[in-house]
């Protein structure tokens, strides 16, 4: 329906502008600090992977990366597992208080995280989870579980109700129907939901840094700490920043065909 070269040009320009800051970060990460300070360069004249090797050889950085991936993984698994039956219930049945409950869940998704920073600190300190990956994983459930319920509810709605009824007539017990028939049908939805939980847990930093001190310091917190210790190690910061983009880029590739539908929360 769209003819002419204009859309292509607009899109190309947009993508280039979008990539510029990212490119600049990569450019910085491949130059030494003295080279960076000596003047602007549109591309690295003497590219070096020195900073990347430094990061890989420093246990603090490696540990931080592991911590981040661990709490993100725990959070994603919890969120999806817990949200699946709830999404089914919300879509298929009417029950007392269903709308109010759904609304209350949404309010948590939209609550400003800053509001929760201080009470979360107190809560997790009191239950002895402070400075563990579990604290961050559980704290991120605050917005990821409601998000997962919301997205999955949309995908559940895409499966005709007749399938549930046919399975019941065929003598499937509910658990068997749910696992053997229903879950495969919404496999895409589950993938997309997992991606979103991953994404929002991976990018959130306020809670992640508030709830950790030394043992479970996330990668990004290591970054801001090295900031103050070493003054302005631009090259190191840039290299660390580039590394944080890699997990996201990998995950997004797997859901690329469903991502648009996922962002519409399964509601297109």
């Amino acid at each position, binding site marked *: 329906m769209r003819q002419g070269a204009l859309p292509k040009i607009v899109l190309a320009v947009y993508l280039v502008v979008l990539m510029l800051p990212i490119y600049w970060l990569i450019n910085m990460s491949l130059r030494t600090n003295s080279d960076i300070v000596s003047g602007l360069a549109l591309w690295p004249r003497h590219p070096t992977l020195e900073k990347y090797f430094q990061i890989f050889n420093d246990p603090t950085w490696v540990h931080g990366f592991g911590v981040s991936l661990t709490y993100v993984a725990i959070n994603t698994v919890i969120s999806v597992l817990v949200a699946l039956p709830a999404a089914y219930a919300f879509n298929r049945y009417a029950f007392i208080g269903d709308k109010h409950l759904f609304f209350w869940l949404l309010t948590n998704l939209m609550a*400003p995280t800053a509001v929760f920073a201080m009470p979360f600190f107190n809560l997790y300190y009191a239950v002895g989870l402070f400075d563990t990956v579990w604290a961050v994983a559980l704290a991120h459930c605050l917005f990821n579980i409601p998000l997962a319920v919301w997205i999955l509810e949309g995908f559940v709605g895409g499966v005709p109700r007749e399938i549930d009824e046919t399975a019941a007539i065929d003598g499937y017990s509910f658990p068997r129907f749910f696992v053997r028939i229903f879950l495969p049908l919404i496999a895409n939805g589950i993938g997309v939901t997992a991606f979103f939980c991953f994404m929002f847990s991976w990018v959130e930093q306020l809670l992640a840094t508030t709830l950790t001190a030394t043992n479970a310091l996330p990668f990004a917190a290591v970054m801001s700490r090295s900031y103050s210790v070493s003054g302005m190690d631009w090259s190191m910061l*840039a290299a660390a920043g580039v590394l944080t983009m890699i997990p996201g880029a990998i995950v997004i590739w797997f859901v690329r065909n469903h991502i648009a539908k996922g962002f519409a929360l399964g509601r297109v």
Partner: protein
Amino acid sequence: MNGKPINNRAWLFVLPVLAFVLFSSIIPVMTVVNYSIQDTMGANNFFWNGDAWFRDLLNPTTAIGERFNDALFRTLAFSIVCLMIEVPLGIAIALCIPRTGWLVGVTLVVVALPMLIPWNVVGTMWQIFTRADIGLFGAALTGLGLHYNVTQDSISAWITIVVIDIWHWTPLVILLSYAGLRAIPDAFYQAAQIDGASRWAIFFNIELPKLQKVLVIAVLLRFMQTFMIYTEPFVVTGGGPGSATTFLSIDLVKIALGQVDLGNAAAMSLVYYLITLTVCWVFFTIMTQLERRRDA
């Protein structure tokens, strides 16, 4: 939500969600409520303080009230400016993405990339990018003879935070709009072609109405996210220069964790939370109305 069988045992399915979210929501909120009506002399001695914190907060003549008012106004202005730019831009770019072809997948991945970068890295990236000495953006603007300095000049700081947000989150609007556009059957376009409709007529009569629902989601998600923005301005400007970019979240964290001024912070948290709740309710009502219209 009509035509569904009534089954109160469905509550069992919802219980796990309830348990998790109660733990991470109700307990913290009650802690805040607790702080908001008490005062402390230190050493964990709390006493009843009634609604004094709230009266201070909502009275613009007090120091904290004025501070809250300013931050609220700043945050609202920021949200509105971002929405006015991001929504039209997002729709326009979505219209430029082809409906099929091998380029689509690659384009969508690249478009989504900024959203997958941890927020403080986004801040760091832009901090470097906007510096006049080592950043392309800063150097280019200074080279053009413009007065651009993020840490000294409030206008520069504001523009920078808005540009960052546009860079970071227009992709959300693009992906939502694209999903909405893809859901329009080809037959609609063919019919329009037979009628000899212009590009503008197609946009206003076919595409925009079909985008209505995803746009409601986009506008409200974007509103909430801009309204609670914290990490990017914290890294890039630290809320400054002065208090030029001290948005509500930044101010709240400053008061709560920086000054450990629990009463003020708690009252502010609750008012902030209630504003969010109100907007969320409007959102939810509009959403359910739209779904009902679809079901009917």
